[in-house]
């Protein structure tokens, strides 16, 4: 008998939910870009547009007690994990109603309720943390998994290799998710890696690893479910390399001198929302009205998030040095 957790069940409700989650991320970030241009959001803003299928697909396999660790391009992961769009947008603004009380901003989204541990802006820096959260689960005999997201650029960092080895050596419950969007900021994969098939690096640590089409939300979900079932059963860490593409610049400052505009245009029809939407239409799974309903609902959610952020308040300067250390309990 196959475990029901292993395969995605493509019911109408489920496919609509996958689409809805991807649309939520896309529309939220499109609004963020607009708000950045209006100087409501400052600092660095890295959008996930084009990569939404990965966060949405992976999250389908996770339970509330699982842990998520992501990068500085993490709005999509936060939304897909269930961080409310309202507190997320307030965080983008730096308001104290934000999910990190405004202290982190776009790159440092944290949310204890959904076990969302950032928001790590040092490339590769989240991987050792994931090894540790998984170690704690293993030592406390909890059946939880840590999902750790990072880009292919992280594979060049020592922390990546140290963490792969340690997680495999100790058979820890980590799902490593490599979001291979082909560019580490502006450096193409072939210019930075002697081995461009990133999953082979994981295999060299004797970790089960597979490559999936990161533009296909169902493929990502299927790979995640399979891996998470194995991890929960005690098979140790698994690695999923999701091949994807970033449609926008690295950040809002990127003039994209390193890639051809035609290349970006070639990828666009393969975008996760575009492709999944086309498939749902071709197979008559979702009617036009359902697409419209999702767009209408999401537009309202984004507007409500902006209103929440606008109505948010600035933390008093008197609070500046709060949250640096905690007072020990007496």
């Amino acid at each position, binding site marked *: 008998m196959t475990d029901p957790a292993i395969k995605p069940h493509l019911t109408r409700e489920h496919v609509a939910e996958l689409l809805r989650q991807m649309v939520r991320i896309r529309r939220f970030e499109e609004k963020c870009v607009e708000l950045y241009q209006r100087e409501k959001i400052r600092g660095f803003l890295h959008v996930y547009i084009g990569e939404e299928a990965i966060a949405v697909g992976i999250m389908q396999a996770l339970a509330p007690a699982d842990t998520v660790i992501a990068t500085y391009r993490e709005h999509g992961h936060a939304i897909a994990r269930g961080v409310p769009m309202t507190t997320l947008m307030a965080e983008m603004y730096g308001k104290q109603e934000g999910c990190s009380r405004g202290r982190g901003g776009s790159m440092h989204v944290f949310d204890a309720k959904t076990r969302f541990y950032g928001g790590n802006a040092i490339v590769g*820096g989240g991987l050792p943390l994931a090894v540790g959260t998984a170690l704690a689960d293993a030592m406390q005999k909890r059946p939880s998994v840590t999902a750790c997201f990072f880009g292919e650029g992280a594979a060049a960092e020592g922390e990546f290799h140290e963490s792969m080895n340690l997680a495999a050596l100790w058979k820890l419950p980590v799902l490593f998710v490599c979001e291979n969007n082909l560019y580490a900021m502006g450096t193409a994969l072939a210019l930075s890696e002697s081995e461009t098939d990133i999953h082979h690096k994981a295999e060299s640590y004797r970790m089960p690893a597979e490559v999936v089409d990161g533009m296909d939300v169902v493929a990502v979900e299927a790979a995640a479910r399979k891996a998470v079932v194995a991890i929960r059963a005690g098979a140790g860490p698994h690695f999923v390399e999701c091949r994807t593409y970033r449609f926008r610049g690295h950040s809002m400052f990127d003039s994209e001198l390193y890639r051809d505009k035609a290349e970006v245009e070639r990828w666009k029809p393969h975008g996760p929302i575009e492709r999944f939407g086309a498939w749902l239409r071709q197979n008559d799974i979702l009617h036009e009205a359902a697409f419209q309903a999702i767009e209408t609902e999401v537009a309202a959610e984004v507007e409500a998030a902006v209103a929440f952020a606008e109505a948010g308040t600035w933390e008093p300067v008197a609070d500046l040095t709060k949250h640096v250390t905690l007072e020990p309990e007496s």
Partner: protein
Amino acid sequence: MNEIAPARIKTTYREAVRAAIRDALTADPKAFLMGEDVGHYGGCYAVSKGLLAEFGPERIRDTPLSESAFVGAGIGAALNGMRPIVEVMTVNFSLLALDQILNNAATLLHMSGGQFNVPLVIRMATGAGRQLAAQHSHSLEGWYAHIPGLKVLAPATIEDARGMLLGALKDPNPVLIFEHVMLYNMEGEIAADAGAVETGKAAIRRPGRDVTLITYGGSLAKAMAAAETLAKERIEAEVIDLRTLRPLDTATIIGSVARTRRAVVVDEGWKTGSLAAEVTATIMEQAFWELDAPVARVCSAEVPIPYPRHLEQAALPQPESIAAAARATLGR
């Protein structure tokens, strides 16, 4: 009523740290020790010798030579309910884990708006004196004392070696403990049931009225020896052991300097940009009008620590150089 004096035991600094680890692991099932060679080898400085047999490999956890990953794993485990004690072989190797210590351990509470604290203890050896040359002998604790979000401890006595680790384990913040390599063999007596001690407060190890010697860690014994020499010259030096390098106990420093009106800061770190500079500046800001002489500093020479014994010793603060600096503040 007769009180029975608590039993005292003869021990060493090394055994005191080991006893603290044993106490911690016995008292808290979530506590564990992790680091390079802490298990089968027994610890690079033999601190954890015997603990593997006592607690097993889950809780006395040998790691690969991956400072960044195992320190980061300590942070992650602390975030998720465990109470890790991470041993880094020496402060020089901790630089390989600096990303995790600074960018994660020290910042997570703040970046997350107070949601995620990191109750982690990281122990490491520091300092020179064993002829280990320029990649094993530096005193970089002052760098860590620069970082908001960390607590930095430097136990200089056997009581503190045992008690500060236990105190650090009650702290909900990341705490770094620096054990000077020359202290591990130090012998002494402590109460058999010695437990946690208060951190965050400096200690006056020797009272005096003429000059204050401010130091910590491996330099404490040297400052005490200098004070002994000075006493023979009728100079009564007060010796302050900082104990905690971050946050600094400025009240004890300023209180002492206000009485003695003279200060010598002794720090095995390099002088430029040092912890000694911080202490000196604090005295200037808060006790300038109390001073009868410029504050003096005795630090390591501005060289990577050399291998030959005579050069290594020449690079470090010594009782003679400390006593000379103290005399100079008195115009002698």
